[in-house]
């Protein structure tokens, strides 16, 4: 082996630093998102961004930790409710309301996660679903959630006291900063020493235990991180739509975000973004079809499972032999 090829295969074996391709994709994405609100409807774009963050948060848990949560709506929805309530009834500023909603999701994630990680596989998924249903019934029954109506007409307020968020365009850039920051944060988590341990848990948990890793702690940590980021997405969404409703916390929301992740490509960095954009676009532009949108989603899900199980980005990554 020549020195040059040796160096190259060594770099492939143990990559150091961020691949240039990823930096380029992030940069292009940012440029496109900066131009987008002048071409497309900002509220639609903000919805895509919130769901992109939500799906990426789930992907952190599912695609990198190997844990399928079927109850992520609990974190998304509860953060949405708490942000809406704090902004409307307590008159909190938007940044504090978002922070409070996100913190609540983190706390909820700690509680649910600590119990759920005691089970594996399908049982783990069932436990998370059961807890999410409990959160849903709480949202239906509790006096301050507005029952079927939800919390409506949430004021967007002034961020840091001087950024007026009532304009969709201004809010869009705030949401872009939050979501892009969240995505970069997830990227860092995946590519940290902690992320290496996560991938090893996903790949072979008993083997990692046999190497002396206390995997339960890592699983709980990633569960809380994922719940927190899902909460951040839900909290932001509450300000965008000025609404927190039962839809946010219903089990179909948990299912939808799993679908976004699978469709885009679980375990890929950019898959959840593609999946979220595809599904939100479909919902928006085929809204006229009514209940048929759900059928369409079902068909797409079946097709993606049958034909390209790795998801859209997963397939592209395989064909181009690049890690995406």
């Amino acid at each position, binding site marked *: *082996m020549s020195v040059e090829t040796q160096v190259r*295969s*060594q770099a*492939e*074996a*143990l990559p*150091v*630093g*961020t691949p240039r391709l990823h930096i380029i994709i992030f940069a292009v994405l940012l440029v496109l998102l900066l131009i987008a609100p002048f071409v497309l409807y900002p509220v639609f774009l903000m919805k895509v961004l919130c769901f992109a963050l939500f799906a990426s948060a789930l992907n952190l848990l599912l695609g990198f930790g190997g844990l399928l949560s079927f109850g992520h709506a609990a974190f998304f929805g509860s953060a949405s409710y708490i942000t809406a309530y704090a902004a409307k009834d307590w008159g909190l500023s938007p940044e504090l309301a978002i922070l409070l909603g996100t913190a609540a999701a983190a706390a909820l994630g700690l509680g649910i996660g600590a119990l759920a990680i005691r089970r594996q596989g399908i049982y783990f998924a069932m436990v998370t679903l059961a807890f999410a249903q409990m959160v849903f019934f709480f949202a239906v029954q509790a006096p301050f959630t507005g029952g079927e109506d939800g919390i409506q007409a949430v004021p967007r307020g002034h961020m840091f006291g001087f950024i007026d968020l009532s304009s969709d365009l201004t809010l869009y850039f705030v949401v872009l900063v939050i979501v892009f920051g969240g995505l970069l944060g997830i990227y*860092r*988590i995946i*590519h*940290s*020493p*902690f*992320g*290496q*341990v996560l*991938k*090893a848990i*996903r*790949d*072979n948990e*008993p*083997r*990692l*235990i*046999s*190497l*002396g*890793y*206390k*995997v339960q*702690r*890592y699983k709980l*940590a990633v569960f809380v*991180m994922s719940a927190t980021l899902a909460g951040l997405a839900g909290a932001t969404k509450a300000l965008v739509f000025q609404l927190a409703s039962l839809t946010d916390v219903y089990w179909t929301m948990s299912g939808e975000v799993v679908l976004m992740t699978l469709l885009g490509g679980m*375990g890929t960095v950019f898959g959840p973004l593609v999946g979220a954009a595809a599904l939100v676009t479909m919902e928006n532009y085929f809204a006229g079809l009514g209940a048929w949108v759900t059928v369409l989603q079902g068909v797409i899900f079946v097709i993606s499972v049958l034909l390209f199980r790795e998801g859209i980005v997963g397939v592209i990554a395989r064909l181009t032999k690049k890690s995406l």
Partner: protein
Amino acid sequence: MIEAFEPNPDTKGDIILSARDLTKRFAGFVAVNGVNLDIERGSIHALIGPNGAGKTTCFNLLTKFLQPSSGTIHFNGRNITDLPSADIARLGVVRSFQISAVFPRMSVAENVRIALQRRRGDSFDFWRAQRVLSDFDDEALRRVDEVGLSEFSHVMAGDLSYGRKRALEIATTLALEPEMMLLDEPMAGMAQEDVTRISALIRTISANRTILMVEHNLSVVADLSDRITVLARGEVLAEGSYDEVSKHPGVVEAYIGASHE
């Protein structure tokens, strides 16, 4: 934490791992029944027996992947019966698995590095770039080279051939520099060429450590192991050198009687 411990007076030499009256009952079935084991430091000790003899269960008990119903386990004189698996690994008893235990979607070098990463202690630092792990890169590549996999260091472990996966598994285990290695059928299902290669590898790595290996096949362990314990129906049938156990009437019956292997 170190308790007084009486080694078995029948065995000479320094005992590194010892099990007393090890028993595992599953519902209505005793998989391991009152097994006593003494593993001498620095030896290659083989645990053999026909299918269903309780070899792998025994292994799982020793590394606490299963909780014994009764009995005690001591490592270096310390009672480890109630420790969780990860702690036993941290003490220096590292096991392999019957089905090859690699991390399939990580590169060969990354597989080894994840073991080396244990030296940092816990890795909860999710905010740091994995560049901090590059301190381990040279050693990871060297250990990959040691087991003859250097040209595959960038390959995803899942894409390796069966024999190479076993070699990678050994490299990963070795990276922890365990005082004791427990290998569960390291040669199972291998082509003869691989068996020879892995046998040589096991001999090399046994230089300054203790190895306990489970094998199904008597001939494989014949010239590799210093001492052999034969299990049958969850109990110790015979123990001694290969010459001793191979002439033992009970062993002949268990092997020839049950199957012609």
